């Protein structure tokens, strides 16, 4: 199960934080700080998995953004790496060549996409096309 998903830039600013386990605000800030520190210093040749407290964080860097997913210790890391990539592809498609600024100004939409992709810490849909279609239906309602 996914415990939280973080999108952070290289300076440590959190662009998206979705928690599937309850945490106090201060704890959340601490977690974000720690994950950022763990992830930002790692060489690109190293593995994409780091141990974090009693769980593990699977991360990948896309341009200036780190996508970090914290999962239970027994989960399949390679599969979550794939799911991070799928999420990035969806964002890319939705925003047409996404950049960090798109994510900043349209943060509410990013959350909506995420909610269509992952629910309760588990994958909800594996087809990029299905998610994009759903998003366009929802946009029409607005």
């Amino acid at each position: 199960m996914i415990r939280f998903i973080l999108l952070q830039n290289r300076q440590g600013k959190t662009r998206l934080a979705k928690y599937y386990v309850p945490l106090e605000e201060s704890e959340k800030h601490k977690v974000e700080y720690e994950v950022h520190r763990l992830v930002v210093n790692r060489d690109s040749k190293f593995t994409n998995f780091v141990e974090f407290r009693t769980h593990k964080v699977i991360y990948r860097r896309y341009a200036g953004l780190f996508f970090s997913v914290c999962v239970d210790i027994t989960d399949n890391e390679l599969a979550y790496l794939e799911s991070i990539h799928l999420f990035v592809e969806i964002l890319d498609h939705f925003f047409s060549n996404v950049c960090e600024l798109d994510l900043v100004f349209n943060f509410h939409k990013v959350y909506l996409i995420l909610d269509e992709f992952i629910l309760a810490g588990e994958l909800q849909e594996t087809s990029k096309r299905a998610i994009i279609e759903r998003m366009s239906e929802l946009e029409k309602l607005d």
Partner: protein
Amino acid sequence: MNPFSSGTRLRDMIRSIRACKTAAEERGVVRKECADIRASINENDPHDRHRNLAKLMFIHMLGYPTHFGQMECLKLIASPGFPEKRIGYLGLMLLLDERQEVLMLVTNSLKQDLNHTNQYVVGLALCALGNICSAEMARDLAPEVERLIQFRDPNIRKKAALCSTRIVRKVPDLAENFVNAASSLLKEKHHGVLITGVQLCYELCTINDEALEYFRKKCTEGLIKTLRDITNSAYQPEYDVAGITDPFLHVRLLKLLRVLGHGDADASDLMTDILAQVATKTESNKNAGNAVLYECVETIMAIEDTSSLRVLAINILGRFLSNRDNNIRYVALNMLMKAIAFDDQAVQRHRVTILNCVKDPDASIRKRALDLVSLLVNENNVKQLTEELIDYLEISDEDFKEDLSAKICSIVEKFSPEKIWYIDQMLKVLSEAGKFVKDDVWHALIVVISNASELHGYTVRALYKAVLTFSEQETLVRVAIWCIGEYGDLLVNNVGVLGIEDPITVTESDALDVIEDAITRHNSDMNTRAMALVALLKLSSRFPSISERIKDIIVKQKGSLLLEMQQRAIEFNSIVDRHKNIRSSLVERMPVLDEATFNVRRAGSLPASVSTMSKPSVSIPNGVAAAPLVDLLDLGSDDILAAPSSSGADFLQDLLGVDLGSSPAQSDATQAPKAGTDLLLDILSIGTPSPAQNSTSSIDLLSTTDYNKNPSIALETLSSPAPPHKATTSSAGMFDLLDGLSPSPSPEATNGPVYPPIVAYESISLKIEFSFSKTPGNPQTTNVQATFINLSPNTFTDCIFQAAVPKFLQLHLDPASSNTLPASGNITQNLRVTNSQHGKKSLVMRMRIGYKVNGKDVLEEGQINNFPRGL
């Protein structure tokens, strides 16, 4: 009205915040916006609510507190329009979590929305519920969600499935309600619903055993068929990732099959085909393929045994190990740790690769590889592995050295085939990474060294050489000092040279240089210096020729600023000066520290606390002085209370003289002054109950159950926390008691029944005394320490002691401490006698001693009949 399409206010706010150059500026802008929002909330204007909430969410993401917006979420959720609801639910999920009581207020709205006609609204509600519902809400709304699993729209079905997953996690009791619905989901064609259905089933199986049984019986075959279908399916562009159709679904299905097959042979049988197919057919050049293979291997490991499948799995892991991609290697190392459990051989084949992974630049891989290596070690490969690991230790990073050295030490300790190898390896580790080695490790090393009496000479020489090169490693220096102190004479006289050693000559003053260096060097810590002082005391007895220099060093330390050092220096100096007669007996060789007992205590000991090392030693003198002289003379007190902290660590610390004011002085019963011995023993028996600071836990030796069972505890094993120390630090009266006492065999000690030492032989020129001890648990064997005392004014050289015993006894002689018996001096020799007629016949021995005096050979012989009964 859509807050985002007009959007100027939200976008403007974001722009203005981003335009701020400093944090203070940003705080100002945020404060202003929050004030506006609060004002707007107070006005209760529905039009701006959604925009306000959107702004609030952004501010929240920046890290500012936004509690005042929580009620706005609720109001928005309760509004009729879809956009308002959407932003309301979004805000709810962002600003609140399940632990807030405000969440309860939403339950009613949620219930209504779950029954809404607009399926998008239903979707919103399910989403919110699935992400943050609490246990009470889950209980309340479970029936609604259950109903929705069968909804006509697949989007709702999949959301409902995942929402149920959360509900079941929060409230496991509700699991039974969802079983039927879940099993119907497994027949879906739509991938999204299928994957969520599989997820739900997995969750149900892990939580509820009956569900597990149900799924196992009913659904295994269906699942296998589904997996087969997608493995064999044609190219589906929608789900394809790197040539695999929907790898996520593959992975989830495999995971569910794992749970179903684990522990059940029939189910496992059904799966073998498809698992073999997935394992062999999946392409592994891309991450997606590897993810599927990884899950497949995990499943194979978990289900019931089919050896061919397992072989397949380990081969896959072997391939992973040699992959260039770090991720794959990491995953392989992880899995191999589990594989060792049932196929050690196969994993051993990859030992070399794994060893190379220990040297990898990536820290995660190094750690995993090291864990794996320690699982791989067995008696056959331990030497080779250790060699490689130690080689790597020299070049590894500082932060890794600690882990690595700890692992090497534990491997060496568990698997070492012979003592000499163990000592060698430990020496190497200490030389490289001494400062990372923990205390109990080098304590154990010392126990082993003292037990390996034939290696004493070798060890002390090796340590001497090592210390010359690696004098910065604190632990190495400590072990070396202890050994040089104990076995200095072996070092200087080149005793016990093994064939493999290079000959070195070490003079007494060389050995002394090492110790002096340790004391005077500025970065030695206090324990090292304290140990060095003790070693000096021992050497002052063993190296009589340079005792002046030793005395000088000790005297210099009298002015040390460290209290511990000062105290020891003063005491030792007075021993050296005024108590030459008991000095040699005080610093006799340490008795062999019983390994078995040590290990037991160490295993059961409290986590090695508190450096008792660093406790100030101030209270010791006070403590002892406080015990009135009357108590000291109380001969009858056999009550030896255990000191509170009787940990193995303390026990050894005292013996090593590291602990406060303790010196590994020996009270050899045969040598110590008669009355003095009584007093000393009494002090020892009183010593423990005295103030807690006085960690005289060597008394614990006597008080442990092991020893108590064994009646004959030799006084030798009373390595006391410095009876001279106590003697010297308490009132001067004590000194007088000790002064002027001549060595003579003492009568029974007062510490429990022990066999009294005897005078085995006495003539005008030579006296031989035997003192006895028994190894605990072995009543037939007696350890005898024979002391040869030269009563004549001439020196005896080439002393050889021979003994013969009747057939029912077995005799073993250790080498004597020396072959030269100086005038009025003594040498000791240990014997071991095993009495096969223990209890029926007592010991009897014929002995002969030959020596040279003034160039003449002399032979003295006699029969020893006065062994104590019961030996």
